[in-house]
Every structure is written in structure tokens, then in C-alpha cells.
């Protein structure tokens, strides 16, 4: 994923890696919201913009996650650029955050928005439960793998990752 810089110290789990992890989580939420919108709403047309069973709380939740998801990815990417500029970007922790954010959002979408709030279903005119199970299992696996990646040692990325130069920004 990156060039490892020689002489760059290993980092533990606390302090400097927190911003990297936050960046990962925000990017993960953004990626999940983006995939949901482009793939399932616009390309496949599986999801519906609205279905008649939607509760009012579903509309608020959808509005928050639609808007919040797109803003999250912007904030996440700028945090990533800033962490790299400070040479505090830890790819392994970022990947951990990405998976937890992405899986967490998909799990929320699948369980709360689709089922509890009835915003819309994954697909219409089909036997629904295999879709729901696949959706939620993929989400849970992402959260699990992400959580595992938060453990153990991790190193900061080398300076060549985005070729940041003095005066940039």
C-alpha cells in the first residue's frame, strides 16, 4: 500500500494514529453512502428513492446519512492529506477505520434504515431475505476485519506516498 520510510518509528495504538483512524472511518462511511447511492439507486435501480411505507424518522435518517456521507468522505480525505503532511499517516489504522466505517454504515443501513424504519428495501419483487442476509453479513465481516486491524503494531507511511513537498498547502 505504501513505501515504508527507513528510520520512521513504529507507532502504537494511541495518540497520533487517532486522526488517521478517524479519517478512515469518515472515508468508510462516505464510500458506503456513495456505493449505496450510485450502484443501488442509480445504476441497478434496486433501491427506490422512496417507498410508501417510509416512516418520518426514516426520512430524517436518510437525509442525515445522504448529506453526512458525502461530506464525511471530503473531511476524511482532507484529514488523510493532513496526517500524511505531518508524517503521521498509518495505512494499517486507516484501513481499519475504513472497514469499520463502511461496514458500520452498511449494517446501520441494512438493519435500522431498511428494516426498522422501512425507508426502502434492497430490491423489489424478489424473495428478500437472501439479499438482507448477504447485505448484513458482508457488513459484519467488514466491521470484524476492521476491528482486528486496529490491533498489533503499525507503521507510519513513508514520505513518497503522495510525494508531499514543502510549500504544499
Amino acid at each position, binding site marked *: 500500500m505504501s513505501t515504508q520510510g527507513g528510520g520512521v518509528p513504529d507507532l502504537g495504538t494511541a495518540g497520533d494514529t487517532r486522526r488517521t483512524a478517524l479519517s478512515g472511518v469518515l472515508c468508510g462511511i462516505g464510500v458506503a453512502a456513495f456505493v449505496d447511492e450510485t450502484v443501488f439507486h442509480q445504476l441497478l435501480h434496486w433501491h427506490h428513492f422512496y417507498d410508501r411505507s417510509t416512516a418520518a424518522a426514516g*426520512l*430524517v435518517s*436518510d437525509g442525515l446519512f445522504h*448529506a453526512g456521507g458525502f461530506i464525511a468522505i*471530503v473531511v476524511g480525505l482532507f484529514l488523510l492529506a*493532513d496526517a500524511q*503532511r505531518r508524517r503521521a499517516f498509518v495505512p494499517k489504522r486507516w484501513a481499519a477505520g475504513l472497514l469499520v466505517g463502511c461496514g458500520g454504515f452498511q449494517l446501520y443501513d441494512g438493519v435500522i434504515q431498511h428494516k426498522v424504519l422501512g425507508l426502502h428495501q434492497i430490491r423489489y419483487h424478489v424473495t428478500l431475505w437472501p439479499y438482507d442476509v448477504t447485505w448484513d453479513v458482508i457488513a459484519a465481516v467488514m466491521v470484524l476485519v476492521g476491528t482486528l486491524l486496529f490491533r498489533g503494531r503499525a507503521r507510519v507511511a513513508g514520505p513518497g506516498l503522495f510525494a508531499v513537498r514543502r510549500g*504544499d*498547502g
Partner: protein
Amino acid sequence: MLELVGLSSVATWLAGYGAGLLRLRRRGVRWPAGRTVALVAGLACVAAGVLPPVVDHDETFWVHVGQHLLLAMAAPVLLALSGPFTLALRTLPRRSRRLLLGALHSTPVAFATTPALVLLLDIGGLVLLYTTGTYALTLQHDWLHALVHLHMFLTGCLLAWVVVGVDPMPRRPGFGGRLATLVIVAAAHDTISKLLYAHDLPVGAGPASDRHAGAQLMYYGGTVVDLAMAVALMGQWYRATGREHRRTLRRAGPGGPAGPSGAAARDGVVR
């Protein structure tokens, strides 16, 4: 009515900004080209919103939504990024400069730019217009129609100046507060659009196909502008923290601050 007010304001802004640019140029002071581009694009959005073909068809609901996106969202963001008050403060004669500075620091301006109030005006305006009978009334009365667009433009400006404006603003919230304001307003905007779609609102907005097209244009068009605002805001944050970061490195000197991020920062940035 709308055409007249819109076009005369566009002409005034263009003339004022142009005069400021000329004066700076004569003094040999540089002004970022991006700000001038933002001003021209912002005024173009205003003009497009108040001129044909948009204004000829704005009784069709989705055209009305497009007009709203141009006048109340895109134009204010671009105008806020053009920094007109900064330009005015640099180029006005001393007396008028002091008057403007006093006005910008006055209590009413500080009050009007409080995020909570801006959110209330912005979101409350949308709710009032679309979920009550107000929208149907604007189709009957030209003056009310113009007034609604003026309100939306002005509240859009307040929001844009608070969140992404480049002009100095007393007691403005920090980056976190501005980001939170943006998330709240974007979420409310999306929620209201979907609410319109769900409940066949607004009343009097013509056939269902027009209303649905309008609600979806509001939902997705709003996302595009909110995304642009997020990029502008985070770009400003990145630049501001970069300045701070370089200051820290300079202060730390060649030895550099202790700890992994300090040592790492020296490696990454000074190279």
C-alpha cells in the same frame, strides 16, 4: 419585478468589484484570480436565475427548484468565495472604509450571522414555503414570488458567508462549528426534499410528475452544492492548519519537536 431587482444588483456588484480591482491594480497589489472567477460565476448564476428561459417557466415546479438552486445555493457560495468585503475594505477611501468596518462589526451583523439563527431562517423558510400554502400564493402574487426569492438569496448568503466566506467575520464559529452547520443544513435540505416527494407537496405545484421531478432535483442538486461547500471549507482548513504546522516546525528549529510525529513531520515536509 424579479428581473429588475436581480439585474440591477448584478450590475451594481460587477461595477463595484471591477472598480475595486482597478484600484488594487493601480497600486500594484495582487488579488487572487480565483476570487474574481468566483464573483463572475456567482453573478452569472444570479442572472441565469432571473432571466429567460428560467423566469418564463418558473411556475413549473422543477424549474422553480432549479431557480432556487441557482439563486439561493450556487450564487451565494460563489459570491462568499469572491471576498467582496475584503476587496472593499482594501480599496475604499478611509471614511467609507471606517463606516463599512463599523457596520461589519455591529451587533446586528453579529446577530444575523449566528449559526443557529441562520439555520432557523434557512430551514424555516423552506418549511414555510413548501409545506404550507405559501408556495401556491407565490404563483398568484408577483411581489410575493420576488420576496420569497429575495429571502432565499439573502439567507443563502448568510449561510455561505458563515460556512465558506473568505471575508473576515467577527465572532465566527471555528471550523468544527462551520462543518456542523453545513451538515445540519444539508441533512435538513435532503429531508425536506424527500418529504415533498413523499407527501405530494407543495400544494398547487401542478402535476405529480413535475412535483416529483422538482423534489428529486432539490435532493440531488442540493447534494452537489453541499459537496462543493464541504470541499471549499476543508480546503480552507487544510491551508490554515498548514500555516500553523509550518510555524510549529520553524519554532522547533533544526532539533525539531520530540516524538514520532515531530520527527516524522520534519522528514516529510522539509524535504
